[in-house]
């Protein structure tokens, strides 16, 4: 069992939840708890359609991906759809783009968009028809906030080869409007699976001081750290906030995130998973040195 570093406390504190559950974990470590892999008998359900739609300012960043969910115990790769009617619309400019599927670098089909231009304040619509069932979603591109860089916090304020660092993204939140942010961290070009979202319930209009946290990969001296700051809309924030909650070490009862994709069918089993997000993404890369 690995030691849970104390900064995780701070993590949860600043995220403002489940602070102490991590403390329970700390105590367990002290008391020599044990973790092992177990077999759990889980129900099998009819695969559900998963729609992931993104309109982004990044090069080739706008796409739609269709896939199916599968049983927990199924260790095969996910099934991605190559057929289906997928239309992205910039309703502010009345531009329609009917997407055609292509294969990504791993050989899985997806639907890239070239015609849709990401513009702050524009309303984007997604319409998908799969197996005669239609799905739609709407997302507004947020205004942009300048990503100024990252500062680093070191555990216990010391610096050596064992020090673990935590990144604090530097930006000034615009006052008076609600802003939502999602962050991704790449340590030596490997993506950490930790989900990080922030809103401005705390610190509206102020420079950010809240750190973001890695889940599986620690940041050490000499590492190259890339942080993506993605401005998102409130429904997408809520979607990722629930994913982040479900990721907590000893969280509360997990729940399925609320999707912003709607379907015309009233049958529950046709419920769709996933999200549609118009988002503004900025990257910042730094090498961790002892300055």
């Amino acid at each position, binding site marked *: 069992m690995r030691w849970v570093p*104390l900064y995780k*406390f*701070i993590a949860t*504190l*600043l995220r403002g*939840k489940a*602070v*102490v*559950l991590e*403390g*329970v974990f700390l105590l*367990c470590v*002290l*008391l*020599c*708890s*044990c*973790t*092992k*892999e*177990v077999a*759990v008998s*889980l*129900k099998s*359900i009819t695969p*559900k359609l*998963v729609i*992931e739609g993104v309109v982004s300012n990044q090069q080739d960043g706008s796409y739609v991906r269709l*896939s199916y*969910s599968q*049983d*927990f115990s*199924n*260790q095969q790769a*996910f099934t991605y759809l190559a057929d289906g009617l997928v239309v992205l619309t910039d309703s502010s400019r009345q531009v329609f783009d009917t997407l055609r599927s292509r294969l990504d670098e791993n050989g899985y089909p997806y639907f890239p968009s070239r015609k849709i231009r990401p513009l702050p304040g524009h309303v984007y619509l997604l319409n998908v028809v799969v197996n005669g069932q239609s799905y739609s979603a709407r997302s507004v591109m947020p205004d942009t906030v300048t990503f100024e860089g990252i500062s680093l*916090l070191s555990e*216990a304020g*010391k610096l050596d080869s064992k020090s673990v660092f935590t990144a604090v993204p530097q930006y000034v939140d615009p006052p008076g409007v609600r802003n939502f942010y999602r962050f991704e961290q790449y340590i030596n070009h490997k*993506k950490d*699976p930790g989900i990080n979202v922030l*809103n401005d*319930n*705390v*610190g509206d209009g*102020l*420079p950010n*001081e809240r750190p973001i946290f890695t889940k599986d990969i620690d940041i050490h001296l000499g590492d190259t750290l890339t942080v993506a700051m993605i401005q998102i809309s409130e429904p997408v924030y809520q979607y990722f*906030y*629930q*994913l982040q909650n*479900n990721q907590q070490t*000893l*969280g*509360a*009862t*997990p*729940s*399925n995130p609320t999707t912003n994709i709607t379907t015309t069918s009233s049958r529950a089993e046709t419920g769709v998973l*996933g*999200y549609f997000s118009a988002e503004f993404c900025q990257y910042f890369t730094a090498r961790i040195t002892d300055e």
Partner: protein
Amino acid sequence: MVLRPAILLVFFLQLACLIRAQKPVHAIKISGRITDQSSGELLLGASVKFGDKNISGTVTNSYGFFSLVSKSVGGRLLITHVGYQDTLLPVVFTRDTVLEIALVPLGSSEAALDSSAVKVYANGQRQRSPTQMGVSQIDIKEAARLPVIFGERDVLKTLSLLPGVKQSGDGNAGFYVRGGTTGQNLILLDEAPIYNASHLFGFFSTFNSDAIKDVTLIKGSADARYGGRLASVLDVHMKEGNNQSFHAAGGIGLISSRLSLEGPIQKGRSSFLVTGRRTYADLFLHLSKNKDVKNNALYFYDLNGKANLAITDKTHLYFSGYLGTDKLGLKDQFMIDWGNKVATLRLSSILGDGLFSNTSFIFSDYRFNILLKSGNNKFHLNSLIRDLDLKQDFSWNSAIGNFHGGLSSIYHQFDPTHFSGGNDSSDYSQYKSMQYSWENGLYLNYTGKLSSRLELSAGIRLSAYSVLGPGTYYKYTPESTTAQDSVQLNQGQIGKTYLNPEPRLSVAWHLNNAASLKASYSRNSQHLHLLSNSLSTNPTDQWIGDSYNIRPETADQISLGYYRDFSGYRLEAESYYKWMGAQVDYRNGADLTTTQDVESQLLYGIGRAYGLELYLKKNQGKLTGWLSYTLSRTEKKIAGISGGNWYKAHQDRTHDLSVVAMYPLSERWEVAGDFMLATGNAVTFPEAKYSVNNQTFFYYGNRNDYRMPLYHRMDINFTLKCKPKKHYSASWSFGLYNVYGRENAYIIRFEQDENNPGKTVAKQTALFRWVPSVTYNFKF
């Protein structure tokens, strides 16, 4: 299930007629106090009856008082209490009489009773009725012999060995009663409410067993004097201190040490008690070579104090106080501390002719504070609940039965969880205004005999809760987290008010001297709600009062029971059904901490709980102990969760079995053990997985549709009494928690395999395997 006021009125009128019809012609009232001869402590639950005749007796109430009515002028009074010599007292009464009887502890060399130990006053006191259902008294001395985790005796953990009571987690002091949540238990320490009765994430309770005299758990129909929570009342009384001589007692354990001092202020009349306890896990951390571990703070302490002053023979003044604090963190960087502060000042007086008055001023405060320093920044996250409470209780013992009535008035202050702090140039504080409210309770309860076989206890409590200004309250609909409307209250202005009548009725039918049947109905309402987003007791759980959105939670409970004593055994069988209304839950994906108004994150619904509880206790012979079994179901139905269908509550456990046994091996050695077996908690597990954003996530099935694995565990404890010296006695306690090292699942997590992201695995974490403990207890 609501009795209409008119029906209630008719009911009470009929009751009054019945009572009048039963009044004896020449009834003589015998009442008094039962105390421990060596310490002067009042004894509760001592049985008092006429020994020659099979007239049923009574038991002393929570202030050590009893009251009996005799139709004959003479007889022999038999007084018995666990751990004390039976006392048979010949009496001749010509008028109403007040006795003060001191019992001699078992093992004492003194004679059973010398007449000087009995004081007689011409006055009266009140009694507790044996009609109550679902009442368990914890014998503190017995509890001290049972094995416990970390060797730290804990009354709250002993509770979970009783039927109808479930531990909230492995090694945890939090408990669920008959399908209620941890926030639906009214926990009172000398009448003061304790808002968070746990230390160190629930692994310890706030009750230092050295300071505790008695603990009563009422899970059924509590009498009308208690109110404010749905599931149970845990009434804990602190010791008053020895009024005969000075004593010290204490214990040294692996995790903590305790010390208590007690003695007379005025010999035989007034006394004091001071106890303290501190854990020292952090001292072990200091030994660590790892600097990060070394600088951690991880401890809690408790301080209890009580003073008992006899102003006159008929008037006593009691002061009790409790202070407890937990601290945990990394020095200078991060610190979380939380704790309760409570104080009670009680004036207890005998007004004459069976009229007894208790006036209490109560203060209770619970708060937590999290501090974080990073660079130039200093942040806090904190919240607070504070009560000022005035209670007046009258009781009147008359020939037709016992009445008690009174009122309580509580002024609540809440500081909702908020974030504050910053650096020299920026202030990140959230401004959430304090909330105020006023909670009142007015009650009347009657207990008496309708015939030699039929006893009855009936009561009504009227509770009122008002939101007080200043403040702004927002209104929400279940569909949206955005406020639809708001109400502005000025300083002192009374806002939304809820009025809840709470009738209670218990009847006992004595089949014969050894067996009885009981039935009860009670309605309770709860105006304070605990918001908890976690599976264990958490210091950041916050209390919130009724508002324009949150209505009072209600519970209607009916129960039926059969009780029988036979040759050294006692059997209790009770069944219950409980309907719960206006239950509070949170939305999926709720943020209970930084959201400006936490009420926007809540949902409301109903609940139901039912079950059967069996309890078989062996009190005589060398081998003593009990067996308790509960078969139960608890479900909730909340719009917005699980499609608005009934779902199992997290604390739903179908089967729950405990076996407790104690056996003296020799003069000095004693062994005690327990075994628990319970269905796993209801939990939510994934039923599928999917990929978005290049990561695998899980699709969860219906809320609480799965079960954690079966829980079972056995613990054992050996006590070695050291050779007694004149003024010093001591014992060693050697315990082993989880004897056969069962890995009971605390949590099961589902995740992508770190080494093979394409693969998903389920991982189970068990908190404790074998936990040995050694404690040295002493007394002089």
